[in-house]
């Protein structure tokens, strides 16, 4: 790993930003996740939350409990050598998707836009592992990297008012999954029966930053079978180590 220079920037009097770089790259993002692991382990009194993003780690604190000077000192000491922080091997989370039809009304549009046949779009979409760089926007929404540019498609001109939870879409060079029913302008190519966010389950969220997502195609019967198991709480999400 190349040498990284970390920058420490206050975000008001209740958060500090540790900035690991100015670009979106797996390398910079890895530093962010290493810092998160290290600082969590440190259990700094007064630190109440962390927000890791592409190239920054935001450290939220209670200014009544810890002064910013002491916090900054502790952060610097913990972050002295990010390369020396070892993370557990990343996991690939396998995500079943029912492509096309009602579940993916824009599959044909994505195919036509890229001069491909619909099955080719599915083959390309299921062939890459996508890194979860960060979560944000809505609870459980993953910012994913790694989508093949051959299926890149601009957003819809008029966003839909209601997109069902689990919808899998494409917006420009990004792919993503809607965790909750919401409005949105992504081109919808399919739907997963998995729940990305369930406050009653443990853990509450299906994905963490640093996971990889591998989509795979299922038919209607398989989709229904998995959806029923998810509803019953008996579905075992498939996770394998990233090779």
């Amino acid at each position, binding site marked *: 790993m190349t040498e990284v220079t970390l920058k420490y920037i206050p975000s008001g009097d209740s958060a500090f930003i540790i900035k690991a770089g100015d670009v979106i790259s797996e390398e910079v993002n890895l530093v962010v996740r290493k810092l998160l692991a290290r600082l969590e382990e440190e259990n700094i009194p007064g630190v109440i939350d*962390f927000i890791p993003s592409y190239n920054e780690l935001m450290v939220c604190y209670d*200014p009544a409990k810890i002064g910013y000077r002491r916090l900054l000192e502790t952060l610097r000491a913990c972050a002295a050598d990010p390369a020396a922080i070892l993370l557990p091997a990343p996991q690939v989370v396998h995500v079943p998707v029912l492509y096309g039809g009602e579940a993916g009304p824009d599959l044909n549009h994505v195919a036509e836009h890229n001069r491909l046949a619909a099955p080719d779009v599915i083959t390309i979409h299921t062939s890459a592992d996508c890194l979860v760089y960060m979560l944000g926007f809505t609870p459980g929404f993953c910012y994913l990297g790694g989508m093949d540019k051959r299926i890149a498609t601009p957003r819809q001109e008029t966003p839909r008012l209601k997109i069902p939870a689990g919808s899998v879409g494409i917006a420009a060079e990004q792919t993503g999954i809607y965790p909750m029913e919401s409005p949105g302008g992504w081109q919808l190519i399919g739907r997963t029966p998995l729940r990305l966010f369930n406050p009653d389950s443990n853990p509450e969220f299906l994905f963490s930053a640093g996971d990889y997502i591998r989509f795979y195609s299922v038919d209607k019967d398989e989709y229904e079978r998995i959806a029923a198991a998810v509803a019953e709480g008996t579905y075992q999400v498939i996770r394998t180590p990233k090779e």
Partner: protein
Amino acid sequence: MATVIVHKAGLLTTVQDRGRYGYQRYGMPVSGAMDVFSLELANLLVGNDSGDACLEATISGPDLEFTCATWVAITGADMEPHLNDRGIPMNTAVDARPGDTLGFRGLRSGCRAYIAFAGGIAVQSVMGSRSTYLRAGIGGFQGRALMPGDELPLGEPLGKPRLKKIPEGLIAEYKHEQTIRVISGPEAHYFEIAGLRSFLSTEYTVTVQSDRMGYRLSGEPIRHKEGMTNIISAGTSLGTVQVPGDGQPISLMADRQTSGGYARIANVITADLTLLAQMRPGDKIHLKETTLDIAKQICISRQQALLDCN
């Protein structure tokens, strides 16, 4: 069981505590009281832990009926509270008997009132907090704002409140024109010098689009440097002021998204967020730059005053 029955809900009344921390990395907003300081004061008055769940009423208050004897205290916005048609004072613990009704007659000052009951509101804690997050329908009372007919469970009181009244000096004055202090933000250098100047010299108006997610201000547009409107999506904190392409700043509040893609020009200091949260559409704001050291001093002295009066 000790409960409070809702007869009228008010404009937007939700259960809130200090907020849901620990899940922002999954994109889960913090929520919680908009004016945390008033929440803490209300709890202290009725003998609760300072972060227990209260009601946050917005602009117009609810009509409530007690099924049990309890203490109740109201802080924050003055909505002219009445117990059985008799006016009761703000910032004071009041005895309530079974069958008593609590109502509100108007809005004298501020925007959000905090209503604390001895024992706190004992709704189920979701992911470590009782705060309502409306957009995902999580926490609070069934994940939503109160409605007529709801019956709120109260917790076991911790003991008789020791503090009867909040010392005068701790009660904020809510005016229609306020100076709000900010600390320079991580992308202050994304803006033209003239843009930064207008940020600190313009009189901003709180717009009607302001809500628990963010306060949208309108005034002279702040100019970004050429092509420097957006950043790589990154974390936001309470009071982060972001400036979209239209140059009109947004101060992010309790229900803010955990991350955003607009340049972060500044951050409102913790002590002044409580004033900002009490402002209404049409109110005027002047932003003033301060330092981390001053912000820290204000925070510590206020915390000390809270400890002293408890």
